[in-house]
């Protein structure tokens, strides 16, 4: 019998019951809650007169709707000007209070984007099953945890039963071998992977990211890669546990201590795929082939290297793709064969659960240091992923670098990644964004999103258009990777 993949191990460790009909009950160790996908779940519990199964498995924080301007945040919930958003945040507060679920409220220094907060607190641990009513829950797989994005009915199901009804996925391994070039980051790696396998390439699979280029990434970089597994169609992204994982977790508030730490570490060391494990599909990329990426279309697979150009829809492989590309170009206001570096920008957004951690901000700050945002850019904003990331960045003086360069330095939240709060694009505006989705209207009605790394976003803010960070003078972008 062949060995087990990391996914197989995590599945088996949480299997409560395998049913004859192919479904299984999987035990859930951690549920993260936010204001958008939980109210109907709590309401469902209430209507059915059910109680949460295990309160301490849950951790909540508002993130999608919260304002990010300093002035509004100083007012707490009353700073939320949109009455509908306010009700949603208030409802999360009320539900957490009623049921006794721990919540980091709007102005708690630990508040932030759920996928930044969980790992930062050590509330995400290797070997856990983690769920959240948010598709970017795949982020937590960077710790060797089995992390799923789920819908609201499933949020309710997990609250009520501590289990998820699931079917085992197939195993895919995506290997990135070799050494990444200077200025090429985790974001570029995952965009290149999505460009390679497509937005449905991982449907039905749990993807394990492996290979020397993945192993060389920091935890922040690994989270960026796993975060976007869903953009390749996979609910689950995973990376094996190693020293980098364990070093990151030591002394985090929710992490084990003393003897329990040693026992936990011994257990976590097993969370790797066996050498003889069989994958249903293996895809390999060469790290050297990956250059800084920029998305040009309205799906994350519509992406190319910075030296590339917008494709000609006529050249696409089949009619469906031709039509998609043609429609994307029309929506984006781009021409076939236009050079990526010729795309002019109106706004720049550095933030989101993909790229708002301390290392992301350091990379962007290195590029921005001593420079000025181009006059043609109407707004360049940096939105840290959590209150703790913000404090850390301020302790390192990154906020000063950004504000001196002309970026706005904001309070933590999801912000312009999905524009549920006041941070949004106007119709027709082009934005260099470190977020994860370039769908039509995602960042605002008629807005045009280009997905890039933090260093590329900062460089674009300064130039007013996309530039290759690798060509910038030494001491800034060329060393962006070292943080």
């Amino acid at each position, binding site marked *: 019998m062949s060995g087990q993949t990391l996914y197989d191990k995590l599945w088996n460790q*949480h299997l*409560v*019951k395998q049913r004859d*009909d*192919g479904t299984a*009950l999987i*035990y859930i*160790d951690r549920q993260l809650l936010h204001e958008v*996908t939980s109210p*109907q779940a709590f*309401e469902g519990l209430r209507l*059915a007169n059910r109680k949460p*199964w295990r309160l*301490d498995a849950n951790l909540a924080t508002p993130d999608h*709707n919260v304002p990010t301007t300093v002035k509004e945040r100083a007012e707490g919930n009353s700073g939320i000007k949109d009455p*509908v958003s306010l*009700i*949603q945040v208030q409802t999360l507060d009320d539900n957490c209070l009623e049921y006794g679920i721990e919540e980091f409220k709007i102005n708690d220094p630990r508040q932030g984007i759920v996928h930044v907060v969980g790992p930062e*607190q050590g509330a995400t641990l290797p070997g856990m099953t983690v769920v959240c009513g*948010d*598709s970017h*829950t795949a982020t937590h797989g960077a710790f060797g945890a089995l992390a799923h*994005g*789920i*819908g*609201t*009915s*499933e949020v*309710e199901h997990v609250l*009520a*039963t*501590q*289990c998820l*009804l699931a*079917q085992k996925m197939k195993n895919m391994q995506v290997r990135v071998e070799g050494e990444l070039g200077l200025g090429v980051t985790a974001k570029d790696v995952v965009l290149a992977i999505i460009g390679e396998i497509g*937005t*449905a390439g991982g*449907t*039905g699979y749990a993807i394990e990211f492996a290979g020397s280029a993945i192993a060389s990434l920091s935890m922040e970089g690994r989270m960026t890669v796993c975060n976007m597994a*869903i953009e390749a*169609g996979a*609910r689950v992204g995973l990376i094996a546990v190693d020293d980098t994982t364990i070093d990151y977790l030591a002394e985090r508030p*929710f992490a*084990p201590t003393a003897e*329990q730490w040693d026992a*936990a570490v011994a*257990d976590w060391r097993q969370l790797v795929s066996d050498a003889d494990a069989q994958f249903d599909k293996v895809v390999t990329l060469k790290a050297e082939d990956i250059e800084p990426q920029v998305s040009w279309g309205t799906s994350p697979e519509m992406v190319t290297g910075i030296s590339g150009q917008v494709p000609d829809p006529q050249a696409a492989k089949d009619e*469906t*793709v031709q*039509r998609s590309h043609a429609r994307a170009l029309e929506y984006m206001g781009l021409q076939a064969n236009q050079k990526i570096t010729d795309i002019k920008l109106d706004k720049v957004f550095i933030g989101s659960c993909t790229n708002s951690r301390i290392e992301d901000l350091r990379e962007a700050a290195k590029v921005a240091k001593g420079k000025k945002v181009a006059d043609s850019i109407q707004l360049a904003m940096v939105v840290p992923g959590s209150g703790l990331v913000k404090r850390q960045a301020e302790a390192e003086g990154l906020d000063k670098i950004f504000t001196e360069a002309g970026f706005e330095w904001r309070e933590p939240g999801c912000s312009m990644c*999905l*524009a*549920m709060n006041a941070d949004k694009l106007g119709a027709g505006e082009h934005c260099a964004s470190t977020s994860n*989705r370039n*769908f*039509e*209207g*995602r960042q605002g*009605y*008629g807005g045009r999103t280009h997905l890039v790394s933090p260093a590329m976003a900062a460089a674009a803010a300064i130039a007013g258009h996309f530039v290759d960070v690798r060509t910038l003078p030494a001491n800034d972008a060329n060393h962006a990777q070292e943080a």
Partner: protein
Amino acid sequence: MKKFERFEGVVAPLDRANVDTDLIIPKQFLKSIKRTGFGVNLFDELRYLDEGQPGQDCSQRPLNPDFVLNQPRYQGAEVLLARRNFGCGSSREHAPWALEDFGFKVVIAPSFADIFYNNAFKNGILLITLAEEEVDRLFAEAEAREGYQLDVDLENQRVITPSGEILEFEVDEFRKHCLLNGLDDIGITLQDEDAIRRFEEKHRRQRPWLFRQPA
């Protein structure tokens, strides 16, 4: 959840691949804390010519006459015919809530995104995966003939076209059972309460750090 019964319904063809959940229901409508009322904003950015706001009276908004669901021949459609990777993107259950609220009972496509697939079934919507060629053929037929209807028979896992052609489809037994009987799966899971408790005790003994809270 209502029981899913065999029906014949008008088919609306949405000829677009990778329809994402932002397109199915844009983010500004996710602020509601209810499960209902999303139907008027289904495909909001495709359906209307202006930018929609939550709580707005949509009957006064300018419609996009080219959009399939605005065409008179597709009024009352209960079957949505779609292209590959339908429902990709976010986990928002507001997407199936909007489809259901609008009146769709079935979506037929060559493939669906995983999270959307789960969410739809939990709201009584049947997703039918057919081969790309079969979907192509249904598109051609539905566009060619006004009032084109399909007979959807979940019990026997088949779709019957007006010409009598039978297209069989796969669906897993558990989801089929829940749909046909209108079952709430929390209730079903809680029948295994003892098994869950036994598992939890063993899990806690083996890996106590997973149950730890900060001091």
